[in-house]
């Protein structure tokens, strides 16, 4: 981000000690953080951590037991209308009226906010690429088309805060790519604060500027994606013809311990400028090198590290390695 400081000045959403109790159970415990205009904010957490509850409180579907939420300075509690004028959202799935056409759905939402005309509806339809089938009933739409219609209704009134719960769900790779570019453009060019929640962590990594991690209703931390990933330290993988002898060379010649040894590769945690030294040592000992790759820890691995690995159940596709 080029002008970080400037962006930080514009607080779009502010949560102040937000707490939600249902019965004796505390669902959300004293959540406080800020989301700025012009950034894409990722909201991460295993199922049942309280992500959706938090989003529901931001958009006024649920009341908070304690604390307050401000959208562009308007309290959701006391200035509901002013606050909601600024918000566009998809909460969980984009559930639309299936017996209406896509266009009728958008018309329905446009009528609820003064000053949204037919031109704006057509503009949004074009933006999400639904021109051809907008006059068909929604029950004939694919999941991806419904998702795009959901994004369309959320953008309809030019909100300054856009909240998308699992927005890539059901989109094809091209659709995900387009959505990502669109969200970045909204944030960078129009200064919109975009809040995204997703289970696809690799997707989050590409989409978000900052992420907040929530578990058991508590905020574990808010970090920029680059900090979050780099905090893992620099790991380098050397693909070689004989892993065991390579590891021995490093131990004897350079006193470096390999963190993983396989027949065809070793992984070493070293500083950047040590890499040529290692290569020299290996070549000098007649070890054949096929490749040198810097292994950054993925968001997923880091996420599991931060949440203590308890999230395993909620991510179906984790490699056992």
């Amino acid at each position, binding site marked *: 981000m080029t002008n970080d400081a400037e962006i930080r000045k514009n607080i779009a959403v502010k949560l102040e000690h937000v707490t939600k109790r249902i019965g004796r159970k505390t669902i959300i415990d004293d959540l406080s953080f800020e989301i700025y205009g012009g950034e894409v904010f990722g909201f991460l957490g295993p199922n049942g951590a309280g992500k959706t509850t938090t989003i*529901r409180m931001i*958009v*006024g*579907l*649920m*009341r908070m037991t304690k604390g307050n939420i401000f959208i562009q300075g308007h309290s959701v509690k006391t200035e*509901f*209308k*002013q*606050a*909601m*004028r600024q*918000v566009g*959202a*998809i*909460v*969980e*799935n*984009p*559930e*639309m*009226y*299936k*017996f*209406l056409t896509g266009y*009728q759905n958008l*018309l*329905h*939402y446009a*009528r*609820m*906010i*003064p000053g949204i005309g037919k031109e704006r509806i057509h503009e949004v339809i074009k933006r999400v690429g639904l021109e051809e089938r907008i006059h068909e009933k929604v029950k004939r739409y694919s999941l991806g088309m419904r998702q795009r219609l*959901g994004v369309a*209704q959320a953008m309809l009134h030019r909100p300054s805060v856009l909240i998308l719960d699992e927005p890539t769900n059901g989109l094809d790779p091209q659709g995900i790519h387009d959505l990502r570019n669109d969200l970045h453009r909204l944030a960078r060019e129009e200064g919109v604060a975009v809040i995204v929640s997703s289970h696809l962590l690799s997707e989050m990594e590409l989409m978000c500027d900052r992420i907040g991690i929530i578990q058991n209703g508590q905020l574990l931390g808010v970090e920029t994606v680059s900090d979050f990933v780099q905090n893992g330290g620099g790991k380098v993988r050397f693909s070689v013809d004989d892993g065991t002898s390579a590891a021995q060379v490093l131990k004897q010649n350079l006193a470096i311990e390999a963190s993983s040894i396989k027949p065809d590769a070793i992984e070493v945690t070293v500083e950047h400028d040590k890499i040529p030294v290692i290569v020299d040592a290996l070549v000098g000992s007649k070890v054949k090198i096929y490749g040198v790759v810097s292994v950054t820890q993925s968001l997923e691995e880091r996420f599991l590290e931060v949440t203590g690995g308890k999230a395993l159940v909620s991510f179906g596709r984790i490699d056992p390695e």
Partner: protein
Amino acid sequence: MSHLVALIQNENMKIYRRNSARVMLFILLGLVLAAGLIIKFNTPEPKPDQNWKQQLQQDNRALQQQMSQVKGSTSARNYLKSTIAVNQYRIDHNLAPARGETLWKFVEDVASNTVTVISIFTIIVVATSIASEFDTGTIKLLLIRPIYRTEVLLSKYIAALLFAVFSLIVLFLFSWLLGGILFGFGGATEVHLSYVDGAVRETSWTLAIWKIYLLNGVSLFMMVTLAGAIAALFRNGGLAIGLAIFLMMGSSIFVQLLSSYDWVKYVLFANMDLTQYTTGLQLRDDMSLGFSLAVLAVYYVIFVIFGWLFYTKRDIKA
């Protein structure tokens, strides 16, 4: 206020774009058509009666005798009295009673029997409108607009009542047209005789029919409000529809079972049928139109407060 109109437009779109709206309309028109055809082909064409004056005089004498025998019930006496007065008016003004089915008589028959059907349909409409959005999840995208939940609920309620008014108008026009086609448009100029405050008056049939609609409409209005309140309370359309229709259908039985008790007059269903005051066949002598309206008003306020509270104050978990 201007956005309330837009909200009602939205609700109308959601009511009439559903297939069920069309189905209900076809059922309604189908029922009227069936009733018309059955009456047309099952009643023999009556011959004009030259001696109708003697016949009515004879009737009146019999009714007079009956009246002297009935002692306790004022409502029964009122009913007999009004019939005698109308008969006498016919004799005095040379207005022969219509024989067989006529256009207006058909419209009247349809009016008093089909309003119940419209009540059921409107109960379905209001319960679906309020509760189905919780089932389908569309409530989430509906309530995150800069609009209070109170306004959303009000627009749904008004749209459902407009559906009832629309259905009544369609019913009136269709039954009039069908009555004319089947029984001749000649009957359209016939006068309607009603007995008000001890005197017989000639009134227009249109007014008389709408009076029936209006009186039946009170029970429609109350049951629709009850169904809406149940739907808002439990967020379950099926429950609201079932319960409201069950109560509406069963109400006359409950009221009859309880009619010997004093407190039955405070029961909603004992007061919903306001036609009891126009026919003179009221449930209890210590009840009056004003009393019933007051009882209805109390129930109405309770329904509205409960429905409103539960719709606006509870979290949306759908």
